[in-house]
């Protein structure tokens, strides 16, 4: 990976909640576990040696069960939580060294956040909510309300400017949350389980809105979720946390094909593999054309199956986005790819 594209670099980040930090930090560095630490020093291990590079313009998903430290991690990026030790570099500036004035500047200009429970200001109208990030920068009312208006329209809420958050449904409230975060033009967007509180249909709709916006804006997005389907749908990269430690950080395809350990395997056990695994993950590399149809590298197995069912004996040709042949897939590969790997067990569930 090209290091020039890295926008945020998290290095050896530790967070221990509770008193007696210094002593506890040494214990953790010597490899003590979360439960042991709680027993020995009455401290809670939040983050344990997190290293993460986040690329500019990409969506980095951070996944984990509740209590795994994902919300703690995202709050370190804008220092809503102070770390116990480590560094966070943004364009080579260590965020942790910013003075409180610089930090306020940084939050106003470089990062904005979308929250799980929306966290809208109940006493402000939708227009005032969306314009909040700008209004506190002492921008004139005309200017911020014009920008806010634009973003309200962009998320499909025009006509609701004078409403209060309490008058909108959950899905609409989160659109306001998204518009509020986008209105400051910050290049980094932090999304803390932003869609988790929404029902499935609305959630899927919001995911599409986000992807649609992203294809146009190319923000650097850090997206927290506990939902693997969501992670696979929107993530360019997925990091998985467990008990405050990073278990795996890789390409989504890699997570499915090569889960790092049992915890990750558990996560991916129940997904519909045919719908998420792409051609490039299972193809046999070659640069000669095969006898069957030609498909793109990122086509999922389900769709390839549809195409191959017309001529099962003919292998399909795989080409990359530039039209160059990169491999082939035979029916056997397809079946092999959809099958759960041995590591995930053979019992059929669900």
């Amino acid at each position, binding site marked *: 990976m090209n290091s020039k594209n890295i926008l945020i670099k998290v290095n050896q980040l530790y967070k221990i909640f509770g008193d007696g930090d210094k002593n506890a930090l040494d214990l953790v560095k010597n490899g003590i576990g979360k439960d042991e630490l709680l027993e020995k020093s009455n401290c809670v291990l939040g983050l344990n040696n997190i290293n993460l590079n986040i690329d500019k313009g990409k969506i980095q998903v951070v996944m984990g069960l509740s209590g795994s430290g994902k919300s703690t991690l995202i709050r370190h990026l804008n220092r809503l939580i102070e770390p116990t030790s480590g560094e966070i570099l943004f364009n080579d500036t260590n965020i942790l060294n910013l003075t409180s004035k610089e930090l306020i500047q940084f939050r106003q200009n470089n990062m*904005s956040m979308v*929250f799980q429970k929306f966290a809208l200001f*109940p006493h402000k109208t939708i227009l005032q909510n969306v314009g909040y990030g700008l209004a*506190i920068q002492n921008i004139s009312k005309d200017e911020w309300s014009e920008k806010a208006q634009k973003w309200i329209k962009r998320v499909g809420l025009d006509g609701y400017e004078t409403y209060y958050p309490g008058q909108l449904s959950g899905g609409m409230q989160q659109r306001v949350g998204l518009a509020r975060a986008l209105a400051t033009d910050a290049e980094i967007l932090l999304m803390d389980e932003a869609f988790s509180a929404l029902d499935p249909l609305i959630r899927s709709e919001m995911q599409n809105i986000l992807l649609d916006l992203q294809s146009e804006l190319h923000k650097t997005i850090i997206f927290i979720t506990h939902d693997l389907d969501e992670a696979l749908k929107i993530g360019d990269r997925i990091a998985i946390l467990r008990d405050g430690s990073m278990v795996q950080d890789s390409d989504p395809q890699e997570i499915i094909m090569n889960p790092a350990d049992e915890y990750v395997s558990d996560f991916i056990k129940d997904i519909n593999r045919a719908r998420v695994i792409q051609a490039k993950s299972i193809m046999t590399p070659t640069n000669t054309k095969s006898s069957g149809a030609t498909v793109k590298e990122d086509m999922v197995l389900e769709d390839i199956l549809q195409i191959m069912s017309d001529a099962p004996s003919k292998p399909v040709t795989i080409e990359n986005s530039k039209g160059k042949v990169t491999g082939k897939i035979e029916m056997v590969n397809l079946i092999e790819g959809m099958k759960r790997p041995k590591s995930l067990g053979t019992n059929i569930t669900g």
Partner: protein
Amino acid sequence: MDWFFNFPDMSRSDLREFKKTVDFAFTDFSRTYGQAIEEFFEPLLMFLVWFEKLFINTPWPIIIFSILLLAWIGSRSILIVVGTFLSFMLIGYFGMWEDTMSTLAIILVATFLCIAIGIPLGIAMARSNKVQAAIVPVLDVMQTIPSFVYLIPVVMLLGIGKVPGLIAVCIYAIPPIVRLTNLGIRLVDKDVLEAADSFGANYWQKLLGVQMPLALPTIFAGVNQTIMMALAMVVIASMIGVKGLGLPVLRAISNQYLALGLMNGLAIVILAIIFDRVTQKFGLRMQKYRNEGKD
């Protein structure tokens, strides 16, 4: 075994000496600084006198009209406005107009003072747990100590009159507004504050733009309580020279005038009810946005 049956207290002469020392010390203090303190409160006294005169000298129809207008602005309820009108007509008809105006004047000034001191105190308490720990016991003492006890030093320092009366009323009435300002700010949703933080709001922007507006209904409940407690102090304050509805009540107690006591007592009750209903309605209207939720 004498110590077992009789509490080993200090000797009578020692005790007398102790009390004497305290009394003399305070007398000395009030002799040295009384003048200065009185001068310090001089502007307040001037204002109080002016304000009371304003209420008494303004023709009664203008006063009633202003009160009805305020009641309407606060409550937006015809019922309350009509009730207020009838109450004031009744008070006037029974010859208590001037006393009511005096009471109204001191209550308003006391409430204003309590708000001006109490809200910043409440904000300071909400900001720091240490400040809270320091102020809460003081408030406890102010609310529980019998009013007569703190009347003594106040009278020793400032003598009898409007200002000591006002101070006595404020000591009694200020705790609710301080407590409820503190509580209101502390109860503001942490998520919403975090959101303000994440957008780079500074302390004052958070306080004035998020915490205070969201705490306002609670703070207003405090204002309501403060007014009620100030009214409750009217009779006691009249003992140290505050004019108004309390004075006739005091006279009624010492002379056993039943009708006089009842009339003036009821006038105080009527004032309390009007203040309470209007401020409560106003408090409710301030949080209207909370009740309009769809789901």
